[in-house]
């Protein structure tokens, strides 16, 4: 059973930057992002999501951050998970490649649940057996 997720989302303000992160607390995490802007401007969402066990997801994040280390412009205070200069599609493909190359027991979330928002969260969690 999956416990945690690895997610990507585009910069809602439109720059060529992508946020990567992991969570097991899905609603609070989206809530934190939604706090920064009105829903009238943007609904906080995860554009691409993978789910898996704790160990595998934690390891995946380490590998992705190492892979893009030089494109993570700054350290600390909310900066260290923003990857610059790569499109969401390119990073998504790289994450898929990493998962395959490492044989991670991680599943890519079906397109029908994406983008994942607070609105379609219940269906998503039920489908993947998440708490």
């Amino acid at each position, binding site marked *: 059973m999956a*416990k945690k997720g690895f997610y990507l989302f585009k910069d809602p303000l439109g720059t060529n930057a992508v946020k990567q992160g992991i969570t097991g607390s899905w609603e609070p995490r989206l809530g934190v992002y939604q706090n920064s802007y009105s829903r009238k401007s943007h609904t906080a969402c995860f554009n691409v999501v993978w789910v898996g066990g*704790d*160990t595998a997801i934690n*390891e995946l994040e380490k590998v992705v951050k190492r892979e893009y280390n*030089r494109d993570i412009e700054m350290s600390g205070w909310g900066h260290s998970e923003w990857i610059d200069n790569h499109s969401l599609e390119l990073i998504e493909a790289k994450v898929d490649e990493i998962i*395959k190359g*490492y044989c*991670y027991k991680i599943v890519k979330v079906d397109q029908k649940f994406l983008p994942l928002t607070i609105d379609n969260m219940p269906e998503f969690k039920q489908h993947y057996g998440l708490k």
Partner: protein
Amino acid sequence: MQTVNLNAMQAYNKVIRANKVKNKPWNQKQAINTYIRQFTVPFDMDENVIDLRTMSENFDHKIIPLSEIHNAILTVLGPNFQTNPTPFNPGEGYVGYSGQKPKEYFDYLPWADDLVLWSVFQRDVAPYHVRKIYNDFDPTSVIVPCIIRITLENGKVVFCVWDGHHTIQVCRLKGWTHFPAWIIDLDKYTLAEIENAGFGDTIEERVLFGCYIAGKNMRRINGLMKKDLSPYDDFMIGYETRDAKIVTMMNILKDNNCTVKRHPVGAGAWSQIKSGYECFDLESVQGDKDGRFWARALAFHCNVWKAAPLTLEVYRPLSYLYQRANVQGITLPPSFDKELAGMLTKRFGDPESVHTLLKVSFWNALNANNGSLTGTIPTHDKERVLAAIINFYKQNGGKAILPPPSCQWNVENFLPKDE
């Protein structure tokens, strides 16, 4: 090879100026990224290490000017690291003092009664270490010993060695009559310097101050400020200067598309140098230590987890498994590797999960304390993972005969249910 065109110091100053203009706080990662962008071949740099081997690929003949490394160091240390910009040439004293020697100077000292050791600021001597250096002696590798020149209360002048005593003893055994020395002259210290360090205005106090200086320097050089040679640097220097064993190990790594790295980053990256020696040195039933078990374990790892760096806690137990099978006369056919790989990836996935979860299973079984785990309790992770792999393989219907594990338990029953 390409030569770096931009002046790194200019770029460094640009970052500092930009931060000042915009009133932004300095950010180390941002400064490092800006610095590295000048180079054709990017390289890792942080507080702990600047990867000079990769950095050197940006320079003709792979030779880096020290001034460029200096710039890289300043980039990492940042604007809060204050340096003293006053130009200082320690050799100028010879000229400026009408022939007088400066406070610190180089000289050759004879083997004489005034060449002494004051045990208050020197460690004990180790005869085995003298023998070790003697047997490995090469006059091109003598580091200059350090000495303090002290005028004692009775007016006698002595030269007290505070670093390099073993070296001097070995040089004497080799017949040297004079010894290179970097000398501190205690008599050149002013009273103000001595008093500022908490010592008084007497000859006895001056001598105690000399001991203080020598002792402090001895501890600085040999303890407090000593930077040990990292296993990675040792291995790479050994390889690039043709050490036979290390060249053999490198050939095994290359055969498996593995690369030596300081950190386990990238496909086939190998960073656990000391454990690599351990695996390489595993002895076959014929008494050979030729790295064959390590080579097979690396091949297993790289064939299964193509994008992953080499995981010590997987390839080391596998090396031991192959070695024990060999010693016990068990032949493990290539099909065994394929079969085991399939089982491990199906159940655990990536190599980190393999050893992490196998160890969790071991500890859960042990802590259950209900007789679920029998045999000899392993005291090291390599034995725990090895036993877990053997148990797991057998419990999943593995076809090959394997050496017996040191302890037995049902691996699956003690794995976390949600992993």
